[in-house]
């Protein structure tokens, strides 16, 4: 039992902050909360993903992505970058987008909130989320694409 506990602690410490939590909700380092209606899904299912207390001055993408190595940008993601702001696979949420993003990005609701229904596909490009780890993913938009502090992963499991 003690051995299991030690291994669990070591494993936990080795993981990057915010990642790989087997839960329907995760809190980021700035207090932002990402929640999914379920994280055990079937292919092509539609799930509801909500966020609250996000920093409204930082635009984000919400998508299903393959979980990358710690510290790397999440990629590939279903729906791509989605600067066009359309589709059910990824969403651009920004209250203060550049001029070309006005009308394309959705603004945050007061309280740093958003709510979307996302269609979940087990295939992201050539990757099969039954074989690789995938997650409901939030990352800073392309204006801060190198900033990993806004990355959040809510892992999903395919039935």
């Amino acid at each position, binding site marked *: 039992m003690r051995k299991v506990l030690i291994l669990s602690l070591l494993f936990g410490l080795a993981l990057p902050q915010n990642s790989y939590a087997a839960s329907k909700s995760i809190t980021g380092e700035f207090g932002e909360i990402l929640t999914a209606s379920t994280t055990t899904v079937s292919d092509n299912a539609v799930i509801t993903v909500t966020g609250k207390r996000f920093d*409204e*001055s930082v635009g984000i993408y919400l998508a299903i992505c393959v979980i990358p190595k710690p510290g790397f940008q999440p990629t590939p993601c279903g729906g791509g970058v989605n600067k066009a702001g359309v589709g059910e696979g990824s969403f651009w949420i920004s*209250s203060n987008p550049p001029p070309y993003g006005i009308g394309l990005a959705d*603004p945050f609701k*007061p309280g740093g*909130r958003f709510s979307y229904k996302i269609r979940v596909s087990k295939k992201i490009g050539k990757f099969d989320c039954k074989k690789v780890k995938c997650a409901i993913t939030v990352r800073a938009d392309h204006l801060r694409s190198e900033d990993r502090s806004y990355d959040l992963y809510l892992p999903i499991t395919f039935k």
Partner: protein
Amino acid sequence: MFVVAGLLVAPTAANAQAKIIGGPLIDLSAAPTINLSITDFPSKAGLYFLQCTAPTGPTRPTACNDAAQLWISSERGANFTPTANIVFKPAASYKTRTGEEIDCRKVSCGIYIRYDHNNGTDFSEDNFIALKFKSGDNTPTLVSDEITASIGGVALSQRNPITLAYRAPGLLLASAKSGAALTYKSYAPACTLVNGVVTALKGTGACDIGVTSPGNATYGAIEVHFPIYLTPGNDGIVHKAYPTSMKIYKSVTLMNESLFGEKLKFKTSSKACRISSNKLIALKRGECLISITGPGVANLFAGVKDTHTITIQ
């Protein structure tokens, strides 16, 4: 002052950290272009570069040219980043916002440097670089347009920022002496400016609202920057979402989300009703007073603390 590669090294105040290099600073035409660069940029905040008359005492000069002002900062919306080649365009003559005509061929003018609005009360970077204009150059320059603006009825100032609370919408109204149509821009991501309404997206920090006039035949074009300090807001409830009257023995599920999406808690000590979670049951005729609370978020908004009364009939 000594010459380096054809440019002039500006004198630096004894206690100022930033060192300004560039020029020309003498024999200036009526509308010169001065190229400057900064080394040892301070870490506390950005800097403003303003064309003003020479300070005559310990206070900052006020006879400044609104059309020759730059914000040097790493923040989004600044005119130049600290490491950029800074292009400063003063004028041989200008009119201050109080209507005073300044002729820099007759009075001492220069570039006044100071901390930006993020550290506005710190004078340690205050510095003055004198400029000398050619006396014979009488090329006419237009007097800069004058812009007055307000948010939510509070007058905006370039030097004394107003405060705006998180998510408290503020209607921006502005006009120019020239009567020209103005354009508006929020230079900081912490504020949006949509359809003339400024909304703070954070409860701390600062925003910068730019108002631009193209000028006209009488007044020169100008962009004026109005800094705004942000303060935490107040969460609330939609009173309309709650009933004001109920029939006895009926029940109702109360909306349990605040305006900012926080989960609300309900309590009552009234004998006319009972609340369990957010389900209210009318027990007796009379007033049912509910207290409603919700959590706040540090540095963003204070939580809900409100009451609502329902008459049980």
